[in-house]
């Protein structure tokens, strides 16, 4: 049987190519890289730490305002988008897309995949 890491990487592979998704990663809530489908040139550990900080900071900001916990953080730029969403209590799912990506499709796929990750990580 495949190891947990291999199964998580398999789940990420499903995302590749869907709606212009270019890279994806599973990151622990405290900023450590769990699994990634990302090019070697990216410093994946730093990317993991920064996205966890983004979502952590967003959660603190909205909950300070009494608006509860956000479902996701979407960063839009001219050269691409980054979307970070929760995947169970321990982990986050992060994807990077091309700038013109179909956000609706990407979010739908992400919610399916984050559910799988939640199950795998227990």
């Amino acid at each position, binding site marked *: 049987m495949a190891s947990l*890491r291999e199964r998580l990487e398999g789940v990420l592979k499903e995302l590749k190519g869907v709606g212009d998704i270019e890279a994806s990663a599973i990151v622990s809530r405290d900023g450590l890289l769990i699994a990634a489908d990302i090019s070697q040139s990216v410093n994946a550990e730093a990317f993991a730490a*920064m996205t966890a*900080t983004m979502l952590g900071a967003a959660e603190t900001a909205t909950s300070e305002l009494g608006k509860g916990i956000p479902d996701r953080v979407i960063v839009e730029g001219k050269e691409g988008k980054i979307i970070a969403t929760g995947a169970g209590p*321990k982990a986050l799912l992060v994807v990077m897309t091309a700038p013109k990506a179909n956000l609706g499709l990407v979010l739908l796929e992400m919610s399916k995949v984050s559910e799988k990750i939640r199950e795998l990580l227990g």
Partner: protein
Amino acid sequence: MRLGIPVLDELLGRVPRGKTVTYSIDPEVEGDVFGMQTLYMNLEEGYECAYVTSTMSPESIRNRFKEFGWSVDDFKNFSIVDLYSRYVGAISKERYVVEDPTNLKEIDRIMSRAIEENDLIVFGSLSTILDVCGNETLDYFEEWKDLSKKCVIVSNFTVWPYPNEVLGRVMDLSNAVINIGGIHHRVVLGHYYGILKVDWTDVRGRAVLFKVIKPGGVRAYIPKILVTGPFNAGKTTFVHAISKEAISVDRLGTTVALDHGKVEYKGFTIDIFGTPGQERFDPILRVLGGEALGVILVVDSTKPETFPRAKQMLEKTTKFGLPYVIAANKQDQPKALKPDEIRRLMCLPDDVPIIPTVATEGKGVYEVLDALISLLIGGGYGKLEGKA
């Protein structure tokens, strides 16, 4: 001879001739790199080394070495004991070829020669030979062990669910056993190695996490060290001073989210997380503080008024009894307090290392790292290193 693996070299020292070392590898972990690394490091030292292959063609083995950046063919002292080619009916031009790799007598004849002629024999996979030739293999292995008065034998052994007497025998036949396994119960899906037994020195080893880097091989890995401390103590400067690569999220000269640094040091790969110092960023400290393995507290030695805040941050980040080291920074300033004065003012126990640093000049930063690694690995790691 050394094993060429970080931490193990510090703990085990030189492996005396005539010893057998076994890397006992969990089937889920790709552990063959351990034997390969040991062989390559000793090739570089100029020892005569032979690699016993029973699972891959000599060509594939050479390519596998190359994946890690080790071109073994540049070394005249390298040879292969080929237990594979004739098994699949291929032709082999290696120095040692076993014509019938299922016949232990035949293997024994070639192995005896290889042991005579080499300083180091590495079995690419002892377990595979056991699978092909049966438990009798271990009787021969015992003979080879007796034969190898001048030679060190290192084996990769994949721990399939063999009967207990087989596993026990492998254990008994090895002078040292290094356990290599995977971790699942934590969020970090890591691999670790640790010393199960060793009979030529007295160490109690702790498990060390590792990463396999291509090229590069086995690196001891510390996934998270937190660098924290009050506002303007020099945390970001500290992170940049010790890191090969570092990224900071700074606004107006102060860290607002975090610093992330990658440290390559003495065979270790360490990811460093630097936190913001101001109280308004404490929620981020809480988010990112999880699963750290150790804490470096940076204090401004000229500002005793910030020590209570420093202590508060220490309590926030070390509540699970994490090891910590204090970096007494800005020692180049005239009013800087000495480590002992800081210890007294902060009421810290005597055994907590307080290291004077000047982060802007990179002074003392690696001593801080040494002190923390020593606390993490145990066994006076830093001290041993100092002697060597």
